[in-house]
């Protein structure tokens, strides 16, 4: 039997979500920085508006500072903080290497925030760290029994962002099989998730309720 208490399971799931969110949003910020420089100056505002976030900037560098440090609740810095907080809460389930990589990324963000320095070059470097976190996770035996929960968070976040950011239910649907396969590991005999491409809101709701559906019922 896999012995993970409900709260720890939730934190593992959210750790997976936040790490994936950090990765997806870092890639997006890098792409938007290029767009501001080369194509449409307001493109980043449009993208962030899709997430319900009002973003103001008067230069590409200011966009970088805002998106990385200053956006309340939605900055990359806050996302990394949230990933680390969940890692602290599940530390007894993680390998030292996994935790120290997440912590190192957090510290890198804190240092950059204190020094008020951010560059595209630096941001690309953080992507390598995020790759290393996922790579370490794939290779580690320590996280083996926890991995379905972290993977569930990762895939749910990716599907969610594909719909919210890119309006691509099709891209999200490509992950359904994977989602069901991971959900099977989290809770054998779970009812498979079926998604249709017709209703964006319902699809988002279904994806985001998978974890809850897998973990709520308690047998006596």
């Amino acid at each position, binding site marked *: 039997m896999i012995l993970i*208490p*409900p*709260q720890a*399971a939730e934190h593992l799931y959210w750790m997976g979500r936040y790490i994936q969110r950090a990765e997806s949003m870092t890639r997006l910020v890098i792409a938007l920085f290029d767009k501001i420089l080369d194509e449409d100056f307001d493109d980043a505002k449009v993208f962030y508006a899709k997430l319900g976030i009002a973003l103001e900037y008067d230069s590409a560098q200011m966009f970088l500072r805002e998106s990385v440090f200053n956006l309340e609740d939605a900055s990359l810095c806050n996302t990394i903080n949230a990933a680390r907080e969940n890692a602290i809460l599940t530390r*007894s389930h993680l390998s030292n290497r996994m935790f120290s990589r997440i912590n190192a990324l957090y510290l890198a963000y804190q240092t950059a925030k204190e020094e008020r320095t951010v560059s595209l070059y630096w941001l690309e470097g953080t992507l390598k760290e995020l790759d290393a976190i996922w790579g370490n996770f794939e290779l580690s035996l320590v996280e083996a029994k926890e991995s379905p*929960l972290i993977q569930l968070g990762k895939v749910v976040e990716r599907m969610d962002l594909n719909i919210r950011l890119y309006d691509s239910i099709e891209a999200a649907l490509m992950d359904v099989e994977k989602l069901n396969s991971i959900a099977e590991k989290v809770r054998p005999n779970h009812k498979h998730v079926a998604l249709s491409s017709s209703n964006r809101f319902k699809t988002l709701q279904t994806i985001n309720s998978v974890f809850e559906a*897998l973990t709520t019922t308690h047998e006596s």
Partner: protein
Amino acid sequence: MLEDNIRVPSGVSYPLSLRMLTRKVFPEFFEKLPIQGVSDYPKKLENAMNYVNTGGINVILTPGRYNSAFYEHSYLAKESGAILANGEDLVVEKDKVYLKTYNGRKARVGAIYRRLDDDALDPVEFHPDSLIGVPNITQAYRAGNIALMNSIGNGIADDKGIYYFVPAMIKYYMNEEPILQNAPTYLAFFEKDRNHILQNMRTLVIKDVAEAGGYGVVFGSQLTKPEREKLKDAIIAEPRRFIAQEVIEFYDIECLDEAGTFSSRKADLRMFSIYGEDIFVWPGGLTRFAMDPTSYIVNSSQGGGFKDTWVLKEQR
């Protein structure tokens, strides 16, 4: 000996983590000096939990993320193989304790290393407002279905008023003289001692028996006259609440300060032991030092620092 902590105090994980680091950075010390290994503490903890286990898994019960020792709880759970749980992760059914798991199943718990105070442990039996305890765990304990480390009530020995009697206890129960001497201590509860305290407050350290973590410790020499009078009144009103000790000079330890220079700090040593099938005294310890060069307060909760402690093997 400045005080006794029968409720195992926190802090073992810090020298353990530091030892892991220093072995990597300064391997030559560990190669050349006969320094005793300390890495087996989590294994000894696990053995003790297994020994008292009533049938089920081992759990470390933490008050949660915002407890100052959460790192330690998490570290020990990971290293000892126990499951780290909050109060709400555990449930008592038919006088047995179970760990709830995310997939809906429950696992019987046989031993709990609890890091909660008695007051908070069981809202049914103790503080009813406790949100971090496990309702009815005391009943499961009474029924013999769960082992609690530390057991309920052993905090009485941490009461600084009890410390006064420990040398007498050693003589009574073991018919031996204590090897380590207590600091000369006066118990305000006794009239003779109380008078001595009231007349010599300037030279004594006065301690509130119920406090911990360096709180409630007052150096008489540092009080103003009104403060001293106020404390005198408190001692007269509630003599059971106070003890006083002669000031013991702490060991001075060299520390590298923020300016990059070495200077002396007052330090004490916290040792750790585990009583399972047998008594294990850990050949290491937590050396705590005061951050302020003029202070005797070494508690980490008040900004104190710490060092690993090397215990050398006996040369034969």
